[in-house]
C-alpha cells in the first residue's frame, strides 16, 4: 500500500490531530541500518532497567497474563500452579522462603504448586500483600475458582469417590 498517497487522501478529510486519533500507519520505509540502530537502542534500554524495576515490570507482566487467562485469551492460558511458580521465579524466592513469608506450611505450598490443592481466600489476600499489591487477590481467587469449576465438570473419579461417602441419599431426581 502507498501510505504517502493514503496520508494525502486522509488529510483532505481530517485534521492531523484527527488522523493521529484514528490511525497508526508507517512513514517512509526504514533502511536495514535504521532498523539495526533501533534494535541496538532498544537493547540499550533493556540493559539499563534496574533490578528493582525489572522485578516490578515482571510482576505486572504476570498480573496481565493472569488477567488475559481469566478473559479466556488462548495465548495466555495457564494454570494457577504455573502462575504461582512464575511468582516464585520472579521474586527469586525458594519455596520454603515464600511459605515462610506467607506463614503457610511448605507442604501446603508444594501441594498447590503440584495442582493437588487450590489457593483459598486467605492465601489470595496474603499473595496480594506479598506482591506489594501489584497482583490483586481477586485474580488468584478467580483463577482458582475457574479451575475448581472445570474440575467439578470433568472429574469423574472424585465424584464417584465422594458419592460413596453419602448415606441416605434422596431418591427424588435420581435416574
Amino acid at each position, binding site marked *: 500500500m502507498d501510505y504517502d498517497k493514503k496520508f494525502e487522501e486522509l488529510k483532505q478529510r481530517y485534521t492531523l490531530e484527527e488522523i493521529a486519533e484514528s490511525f497508526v500507519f508507517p512513514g517512509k520505509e526504514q533502511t536495514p541500518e535504521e532498523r539495526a540502530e533501533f534494535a541496538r537502542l*532498544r537493547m540499550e534500554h533493556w540493559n539499563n532497567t534496574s533490578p528493582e524495576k525489572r522485578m516490578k515490570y515482571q510482576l505486572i507482566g504476570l498480573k496481565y497474563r493472569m488477567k488475559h487467562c481469566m478473559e479466556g485469551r488462548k495465548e495466555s492460558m495457564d494454570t494457577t500452579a504455573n502462575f504461582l511458580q512464575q511468582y516464585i521465579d520472579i521474586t527469586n524466592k525458594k519455596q520454603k522462603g515464600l511459605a515462610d513469608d506467607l506463614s503457610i506450611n511448605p507442604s501446603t505450598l508444594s501441594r498447590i504448586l503440584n495442582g493437588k490443592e487450590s489457593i483459598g481466600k486467605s492465601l489470595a489476600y496474603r499473595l496480594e500483600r506479598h506482591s506489594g499489591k501489584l497482583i490483586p487477590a481477586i485474580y488468584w481467587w478467580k483463577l482458582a475458582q475457574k479451575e475448581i469449576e472445570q474440575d467439578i465438570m470433568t472429574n469423574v473419579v472424585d465424584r464417584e469417590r465422594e458419592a460413596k461417602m453419602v448415606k441416605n441419599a434422596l431418591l427424588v431426581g435420581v435416574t
Partner: protein
Amino acid sequence: MKILHKPSETLQDAVIELMENDDWERVYQSDEFEFDWAKERKWTVYKLTLEGDTIIQGLVAIEDIVRESRIHVHLIENALSNRGKDKIYDYVAGCLLASLCEIAFDKRYEGFVSLHSKTEIISLYTNKYRFREMGQNLFIMGENSLLLIEKYLR
C-alpha cells in the same frame, strides 16, 4: 475497558480479541475500513468491539518481535464512524494502544511498544499517548505504558 459514546457522553464496555475467520469476512465486506487489511493478515490482528457485539469499532495489526523484546504496531484503523469531529465512539485507538502495552507486559517486554509514523504527526503521538522518539521510530515502555493503561483501561 470502556469507550466513550459521544452522542450520549456515556462510557460503554468494550473488549479486544483476536480476529477470527468470520470477522475477516465482515471487514472485507465493510465500508468502515479503507486500508487493505487482507495484507495485514500475516501479522497478529486484534479487533475492538463493544461487549457482546460483533460490530468492529477498530483494528490493530501487530508484530511480536521476540528478539528485541517488543511489540511493533504495523497498522491501527478506527472504523469510519469513529473518526473526525462527528465520531460516534471515542478512545478506540487509545484503548487499542493501551491493550498493546498490557500485551507487552504479558510477554515480559516491560511494556515496550513501538510504531513507525509519518513525520508530520509524530508530535501528536508523543503528546497524546506519551510515546517517545527513538531514531525514526516511536516507542512507549515502563511507567509511561502503565500510565496509558491506567488512562484507557482502568
